[in-house]
């Protein structure tokens, strides 16, 4: 069975930068593979291997400007291929300057329908940058698939899937029919770093780039605005000189002064 994976190239949270006015300097922040999408690719590989099928990567470059982000984006896709993808179909379009779940899901649905239409599509429980967690259900509804979110285990059986879902205080085991979109949590597996050989092989795997117009879609301006970094208001007093006894004494007096530690 072929398994699709929707992968996001997300803003790297370790290298966030802002403009002088406090807005997020999207242009200058590198892209990395969204954390839980690595789990999704890894899981897709496992299922494809056990059922005999391909792993197809789908992605849409949403951050801008496309020409400056393209290199990072390609690296993300190559990483997904090295982690277990067989081929990739992606949208890179210079007319895109941001997206929102409604549009991203439309683009992914068009890609999926045009290239392979796998009956199982996986994705991470949330992207690490926008964390909306809404792509899996939105995409499922757009494709007319069933949806199961926050999967911590996944089995294909009798033409359907059995999923252990993490719903806050409970684990629910659910049975759903295929075709389906499933979002996975970080608990579902522990992806290994790709080997050098896998990385080298990834460069020989098909990576097909297409544009919105080739998919018959018109660009959409997202209604998001004012992406802004929250300024850290912490005092950042670091105590490092002195014996442990002295350091603790200083800390305790600060905490008493703050009123969070009472006699």
């Amino acid at each position, binding site marked *: 069975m072929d398994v699709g994976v929707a992968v996001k190239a997300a803003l790297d949270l370790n290298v966030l930068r802002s403009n002088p006015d406090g807005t997020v300097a999207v242009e200058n922040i590198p892209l990395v593979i969204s954390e839980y999408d690595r789990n999704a690719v890894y899981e897709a590989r496992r299922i494809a291997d056990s059922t005999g099928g391909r792993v197809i990567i789908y992605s849409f470059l949403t951050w801008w400007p496309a020409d400056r982000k393209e290199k990072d984006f390609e690296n993300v896709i190559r990483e997904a291929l090295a982690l277990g993808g067989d081929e990739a179909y992606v949208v890179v379009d210079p007319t895109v300057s941001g997206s929102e779940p*409604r549009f991203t899901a439309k683009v992914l649905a068009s890609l999926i329908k045009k290239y392979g239409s796998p009956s199982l599509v996986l994705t991470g429980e949330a992207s690490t940058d926008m964390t909306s967690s809404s792509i899996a259900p939105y995409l499922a509804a757009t494709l007319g698939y069933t949806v199961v979110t926050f999967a911590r285990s996944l089995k294909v059986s009798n033409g359907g899937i059995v999923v252990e879902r993490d719903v806050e205080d409970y684990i629910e085991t*659910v049975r759903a029919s295929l075709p389906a979109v499933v979002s996975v949590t970080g608990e579902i597996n522990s992806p290994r770093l790709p080997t050098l050989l896998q990385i080298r092989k990834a460069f020989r795997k098909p990576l097909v780039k297409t544009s919105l117009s080739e998919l018959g879609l018109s660009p959409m301006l997202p209604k998001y605005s004012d992406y802004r970094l929250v300024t850290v208001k912490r005092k*950042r*007093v670091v105590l490092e000189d002195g014996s442990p006894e002295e350091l603790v004494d200083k800390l305790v007096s600060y905490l008493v002064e703050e009123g969070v530690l009472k006699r």
Partner: protein
Amino acid sequence: MRVLAVSNSGKYYGDLEGFISRLDGVEEAILVTSDTPGGNFSKIYRVGDVYGDLLARILGEVGEPDLVVGIHTRKVLEAVAYLAGARDMPIVTEVVGLEGMTVTRNILSGRGTAKYSLSPPAALTIAPGKFSGQLSLGPPEVMELGEKPSTVVVDRSEKSRTGVDIESAEIVVGVGRGFKEKDDLKLAFELAEALGGEVGCSRPIAADYKWLDEDRWIGISGKKLRGKLYIAVGISGAPQHIMAANDVKVIVAINKDKNAPIFEYADYGIVGDLYQILPILTRKVRELRGV
């Protein structure tokens, strides 16, 4: 304006009523819930469980709303986002603020915010604990809905839990990978006890090592803190962890690595070996509090 509200627990009715009461010109607010009906909504549909295809069927009965507002829990989020997809509506999740028809949400694991201007019809989920209030549209007529969703729950088990509620604790001591062995966590438990607080942990401690139950896991996928003091011990400070402690009044970091990101997000930090620092801190807190 017509609003469809969605919840899977009665404890969020106040959040939903609070959000909806801040919207202009709401004439009707229908609640879909899988819990005991409550709140001053216009009408209530009680369902066995909240699913996207069920919400779509309810809309077929009650007509299209201008806004769908769900509480941001995993079940409701899935259902509302699915409904949005089925109706080609925009979706905005985990909303924390509202001004006119512009909503704010956190992005970049809590290190940023973004605004979104809603133009109905639209769907959204609101973060628990950010809105509260009451509507005056009731008393509601309650309808039971027996329809079955396409996803079948075959088993349900409670997560292993210790019954602690670190989300409402005033003081939390957090433990991370700086602890070498599970037994060593007692150093943190002793400090928490001296402080009258609870013990929480970073993701690896709960998810990978399984030294502590998941109800102690502090993170965006775990529990969020909002007390007065958080002491992060041996925690380097992954963005998802730091975000979950954003609302705490005072953050303290104890870590032997001077370059650990956690120090950037702490009010007070001690660069030092937790195995030396914690016993001293526990002793001094005991002396101070006379416990």
